[in-house]
């Protein structure tokens, strides 16, 4: 699978995605503020989604697409929750806010 040119390209792109995941983890640990950590978490999940997509191209399978969709949903909700917590100090509004 890795002997063709496309295989090498996919393998190298997967390598660089993993490198960017490591850099994002560094920002997640080091990040001086809560908002940097939140952004790092969002970017981390996007990078994991990209890695899974490249890996499923590498394996020529569609079995991981549900994982991609589920990660997208969970990172969306998590980012909204963190942003709400940073902005207002609570996550779920108890009284109706309309």
């Amino acid at each position, binding site marked *: 699978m890795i002997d063709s040119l496309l295989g090498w390209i996919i393998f190298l792109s997967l390598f660089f995605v993993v490198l960017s995941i490591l850099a994002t983890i560094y920002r997640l640990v080091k990040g001086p503020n809560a908002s940097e950590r939140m952004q790092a978490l969002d970017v981390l999940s996007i990078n994991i989604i990209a890695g899974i997509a490249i890996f499923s191209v590498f394996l020529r399978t569609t*079995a991981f697409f*549900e994982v991609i*969709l*589920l990660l997208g*949903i*969970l990172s*969306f*909700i998590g980012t*909204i*929750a963190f942003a*709400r917590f940073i902005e*207002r100090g*609570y*996550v*779920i*509004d*108890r*009284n*109706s*806010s*309309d």
Partner: protein
Amino acid sequence: MRESEMKKPKMREPNDVILRTVTKVAVFIILTFSVHLFVSGHHNPGGGFIGGLAFVAAIVLLFLVYGIERVRRNIPIDFKVVAGIGVLIAVLTGARGILIGEPFLKQTFGHANLPLFGKTELATAVLFDVGVALAVIGTSLTIIMSIGDDR
């Protein structure tokens, strides 16, 4: 306590039009995806547990955007009862095996000719999965509502 909250100066009005508009579409996508995960759980990755968790993710998104009271007013269901009904369904489908002299949780399947779908494989494991999904939905939403209630 309510009066002290009422007397507190009103915070800045939340201006999240984009979030509300996106949520109105995304909730339906997540609910459809949870049903897809639930149905595909017999042969493919998925099942009652993860389908219920995706359902809970959609409800949590509604909680985040619209507030817990408004969602409770529109979905007037006691989720502890839902969890109980789910566990009851799961145990009853398991006890079916004991009643006919087979091991506990023994499942069976058969083929039926449905009018719209043609020849379809029907399995009793789906009923067990319904119980698991209801138990997961009830438990998770009870936990989230009781954590989110007191701050």
